[in-house]
């Protein structure tokens, strides 16, 4: 299994705006195994680099350095024809279910495009059957939605149709970029449920990009947490959520408002002024200005990933490595 992963992200780095520009993603590596479909959660605040990663995996931007290899293809070096082939295997669902539709066309356009360009069907009837099948997988009927315009559907419906579209391509990986953050709470479950179903029944892996740790905890298998373009902590989702190690992740999980009036936030936290955050981008651990455990050694270099218990559970923090002890 580790020999030939489905998706292999190798030391990928993305810098915007020249060599001294903003480091959106810093030397990141990740593997998704081929024969064990997973929902891998990529989590972090806005600006943490998680959307950059999604765009890199989808081939929308090219890495500044490093490689993304999918099924033997180097995603950063695909010709436009190869890119189309690649997209047969890697699909996406985006945050804004409305924006994903071209308002000029009826809903069926999103299916027609895929069928036409990927030559999925030979006849109209076959195409129709495929659409129906895809829609059934997300609990919708073609006659209800296909002839409508996107604005005539509800947000939940729109997002489920997007799932159906991705499913119809029968990809091996779906990048789901915040698929539920713009959907009402009472409808979220139906979309998350589709994701789990596609993983379990369709054998499709997901890169689930989100800022919402709760849903990640509910459906995810593995989780990767970013802080300002750097990986803070990764591991099995249960391990990370129930037993966070990185001070940032701890703060993050502590800050999620619990739907339980008896368990309210304890204590107050301070936010540093913006300037300090900005200067912190240069070297060392990005979290230093806000970290209660910050030490000089944290400013020297970006801490490597240290194993912190359960297999695969690792955190980028000097608290768990030898450098801290050495410094003290």
């Amino acid at each position: 299994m580790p020999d030939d992963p489905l998706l292999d992200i190798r030391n990928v780095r993305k810098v915007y705006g020249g060599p001294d520009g903003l480091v959106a993603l810093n030397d990141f590596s990740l593997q998704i195994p081929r024969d064990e479909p997973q929902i891998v959660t990529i989590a972090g605040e806005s600006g943490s680099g998680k959307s950059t990663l999604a765009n890199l995996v989808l081939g929308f931007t090219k890495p500044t350095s490093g490689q993304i290899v999918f099924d033997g293809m180097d995603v950063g070096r695909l010709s436009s024809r190869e890119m189309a082939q690649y997209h047969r295997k890697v699909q996406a669902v985006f945050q804004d279910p409305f924006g994903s539709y071209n308002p000029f066309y009826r809903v069926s356009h999103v299916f027609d495009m895929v069928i036409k360009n990927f030559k999925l069907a030979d006849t109209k009837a076959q195409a129709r059957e495929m659409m129906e099948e895809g829609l059934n997988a997300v609990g919708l009927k073609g006659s209800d939605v296909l002839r409508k315009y996107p604005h005539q559907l509800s947000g939940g419906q729109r997002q489920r149709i997007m799932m159906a579209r991705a499913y119809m391509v029968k990809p091996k990986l779906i990048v789901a970029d915040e698929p539920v953050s713009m959907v009402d709470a009472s409808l979220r479950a139906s979309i998350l449920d589709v994701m789990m179903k596609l993983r379990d029944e369709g054998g499709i892996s997901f890169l689930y990009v989100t800022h919402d740790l709760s849903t990640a905890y509910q459906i995810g298998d593995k989780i990767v947490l970013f802080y300002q373009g750097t990986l803070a902590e990764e591991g099995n989702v249960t391990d990370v959520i129930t037993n966070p190690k990185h001070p940032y992740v701890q703060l993050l999980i502590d800050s999620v408002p619990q739907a339980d009036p008896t368990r309210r936030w304890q204590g107050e936290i301070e936010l540093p002024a913006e300037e300090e955050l900005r200067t912190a981008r240069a070297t060392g651990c990005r979290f230093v200005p806000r970290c209660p455990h910050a030490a000089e050694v944290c400013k020297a270099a970006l801490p490597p990933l240290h194993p912190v218990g359960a297999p695969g559970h690792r955190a980028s923090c000097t608290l768990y490595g030898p450098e801290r002890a050495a410094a003290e």
Partner: protein
Amino acid sequence: MTEPRNVVLKVRGLSVFYATPTGDVRATDDASFDLYEGETLGLVGESGSGKTTATSGILRMVSSPGRIVAGSVELDGVDLLALKEEDLRRQRWSKLALIPQGAMNSLNPTMKISAQIADVIRTHTGKTPPRDRILELFQMVGLPGRIHDMYPHELSGGMKQRVCIAMGIALNPRVIIADEATSALDVVVQRVVAQTMAKVRDALGVSMIMIGHDMGLMAQMVDRIAVMYSGKIVEIARVADMFARPAHPYSKILIDSVPSLTQRQALRITGGITHDPRNPPKGCIFQLRCPYAAPQCREPQPLREINPGQLAACCRAEEILAGTAQAREIADA
């Protein structure tokens, strides 16, 4: 639990309709509730539920094609909806302040931060506030003094939101309405801002209405909670009661849909279809999506007291509380 408290804001039968060529959309329909002195009331609902419209109604700021059809909003016994425009203007902010949603766009981009706080003070007190007063307000919400001469675009989202809080408390109002005040922020910043808000609220003893869709945040912040669905208030209860034993099926769905961070559990999916807002079903507004819909739901469902302090608009509330309600007793219409 039943200590007698003063009602600061009394909303009765507030209805705000939006005109369309084919009839009115009942964005807020016959909403009634009380806000007690010093308490925080949560107003939750999903998009389109009418919670923001209700706020506009309370502030009497409904813009065309909407209009306030009926109701009264009594602030300390004065009906805001009946006031002359100039009198209403004087009441605004000095009595009833607003912390808006999306502070990103709620500050005038061409005015300095301090000027935007100063102008409201000057308008209502007739005096230009000294610099110290502004700095004091900044301090209360944890903002550095150096932003005094800055422009909004120079601040981060969290800071702007705190500027709005500082602005809201500038005149020690009786009531503050916080409309989704933290929903655009990242989790950690959201917590900081929400806690700042709570701290200021407690320090000033001001009453507050928090509008939002995040049940988690409500659980953290409010004393009582009102749930809206499609323009109607379907349940009002103390926050503990609401989370422990919701009496309205929609409240129950909302609470159940919040994913937990403490235990993994199967996702609970609600079916049914939302109705056309221009053409609501007769009777209970929720019947098309309700898992417990029954023939008697075709009758209008007024808000009624189920338990002391807990009101719900459901004929089967008792059954639901008792856990004996049978699912889906009518076929889809």
